[in-house]
């Protein structure tokens, strides 16, 4: 690896990209247009509500009913009381592909009256970290309200505490990380599918192979460019989201690993699609077949938790889902542990696909 060759090629690659209005449009302008359109359409649609399945083992005591009503009124969760199950609630949730549940124990009201400790049990799905964050935030908020009510007899104080403690996320808050993910996906994918197929046709790889530039240096320069593009696109989207729609998104350290690993992953996917295609036309078809389902099913435009169960299952096998989930965890929920989990998935998949791409992509001909 030679730094000055990477720099020389990076400069040329960047110039080529910047001078191509189509590429720049899809990287920077198109996501902004999507933010403006979707933001305008869904700005008043209210918060994202997570279904919360509740087993009330306290026999619908007034205190437990009040607790659930308070939870429901946060708007963050939609309480759905189910009959106590023969097995445990966790099994029920898994069986029905639901992400969140709550058990109110027998003796809940008695404990409140006697001011003894009582524990409600919250079930969340680690793979749906954003929904988990919402549920935990809402339950903790209501618990605090109840505790405060018992201590001071004032419900008003608990309400304000609830609003601070569990932020209610709006559609635009989800849209920004989703579209950052969209940008991480489309730009490298479209470009690499196009490059790896048309450059093969135009013998540009052969041309480069006659210089000291190595394949690894070429890929490094291209990836650096897409990482830079992803970072610029993310910053612009966060700025537009905040300034136009008041989105609760900000620049956080956790988003950067995804802005590096994401482009590496999708550069590799694009390179594989372009390399295995005989013609640029086939490459474009393969690219679209990969791109469109991933774009719509990974939580780009709508949270995956709002999908039907079977589509949620599909989403979980798409790498973009983990990029967007990780960005949500990082940007929205400050959930480092969740983001790390997503990052591990992205890095592992990126590494595997990168190795596959390197093995199928050749610029010498046999």
């Amino acid at each position: 690896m030679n730094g000055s060759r990477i720099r020389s090629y990076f400069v040329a690659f960047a110039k080529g990209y910047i001078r191509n209005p189509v590429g720049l449009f899809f990287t920077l302008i198109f996501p902004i247009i999507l933010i403006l359109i979707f933001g305008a359409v869904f700005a008043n649609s209210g918060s994202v509500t997570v279904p919360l399945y509740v087993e009330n083992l306290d026999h619908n005591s007034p205190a437990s009913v009040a607790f659930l009503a308070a939870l429901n009124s946060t708007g963050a969760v939609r309480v759905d009381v189910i009959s106590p199950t023969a097995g445990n609630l966790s099994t029920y949730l898994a069986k029905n592909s639901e992400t969140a549940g709550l058990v109110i124990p027998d003796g809940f009201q008695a404990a409140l009256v006697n001011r003894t400790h009582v524990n409600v049990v919250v079930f969340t799905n680690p793979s749906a970290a954003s929904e988990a964050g919402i549920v935990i935030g809402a339950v903790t908020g209501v618990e605090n309200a109840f505790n405060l009510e018992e201590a001071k007899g004032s419900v008003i104080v608990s309400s304000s505490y609830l609003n601070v403690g569990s932020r209610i996320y709006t559609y635009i808050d989800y849209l920004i990380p989703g579209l950052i993910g969209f940008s991480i996906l489309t730009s490298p994918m479209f470009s690499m599918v196009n490059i790896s197929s048309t450059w093969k046709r135009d013998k540009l790889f052969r041309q480069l192979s006659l210089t000291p530039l190595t394949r690894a240096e070429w890929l490094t320069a291209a990836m650096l460019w897409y990482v830079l593009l992803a970072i610029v696109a993310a910053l612009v989207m966060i700025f537009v989201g905040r300034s136009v729609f008041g989105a609760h998104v900000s620049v956080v350290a956790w988003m950067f690993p995804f802005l590096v690993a994401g482009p590496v992953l999708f550069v590799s996917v694009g390179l594989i699609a372009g390399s295995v295609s005989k013609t640029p036309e086939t490459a474009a078809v393969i690219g679209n077949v990969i791109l469109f389902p991933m774009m719509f099913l990974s939580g780009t435009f709508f949270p995956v938790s709002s999908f039907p169960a079977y589509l949620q299952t599909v989403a979980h096998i798409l790498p973009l889902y983990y990029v967007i989930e990780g960005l949500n965890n990082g940007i929205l929920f400050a959930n480092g542990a969740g983001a790390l989990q997503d990052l591990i998935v992205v890095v592992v998949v990126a590494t595997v696909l990168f190795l596959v791409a390197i093995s199928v992509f050749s610029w010498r001909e046999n």
Partner: protein
Amino acid sequence: MTAAVEVEKLVKTYGSVRAVDGIDFTIETGEVFAFLGPNGAGKTTTVEILEGIRPSTSGQVRVMGRDPWKEGRELQRKIGVIPQDFHFFPKLNSREAIDLYAGLFGVPSRAKELLDRVELSDKADALFENLSGGQKQKLGLALALVNDPQLCFLDEPTTGLDPRARRAIWAVIRGLKAEGRTVFLTTHYLEEAQLLADRIAIINLGHIIAAGAPSEIINRYGRPERLRIVADPALAEPLRRQLGLPVDVQNGAISVELHAKGDALKVLSWVESSGYSYSSFSTAQDTLEDVFIRLVGVSDHSALDLAPEGDSA
């Protein structure tokens, strides 16, 4: 002189097709060597093997003392290449293209000097996508010279160029030779090979069917000099009978093969004294093109290398 390129029993097969079938040749340092052949003859395959971008099936190849496939990276720093049907990055201008190459080769950029040399200075700021076919080829040639190579592979460098641009490229090739560089030239312009090359090899169906200096090839494979008389075709038969020379009638003219220096005079004296009338006469000698056409067995120009050669050969 040491050999810049040595090729022995080189074979390249694609499945059951033997694109290059056991060829041998040597290129001495400092000479211009032209490689001629019809479409699919194996020219580009051979060039790409020499450049180190395609492996051979068997045989020995040494380019500047190196095995091009195994030591391609070291070799490619020392050679200059303009591939057939040269393409480059559409959104880079000519100067930037040379700067890029200079950066990749780790040498100072001589954009102005190289663009001057190929007469492309006026297009220094033009994007590659806006250059004409001839200008693209000129840029390709300038790029091939960025690393100051001692051996240049020019794969049909003048294809598609107008006569003026072609002559400009010829001047560059002559300049390369004058500087002591070795040039491996493939071309379908036989006139170009005859004008520029010290030695020529003609390849057909994967075999080299003729090699040597252009004049040697013409002498060895060309027909003898002929006297062409535009006259009544009835003259042919008595001429053949009286003088014992091969006589042929083509396109309304009588062609007599001349075997000895005095044959032309003998023929003309006999015609004068025979009373037959004739309108004109001239002598004709085979050109490299005539020889080429005879050797590769094609009778019209369209079968020559007028279209880019496919990958598979």
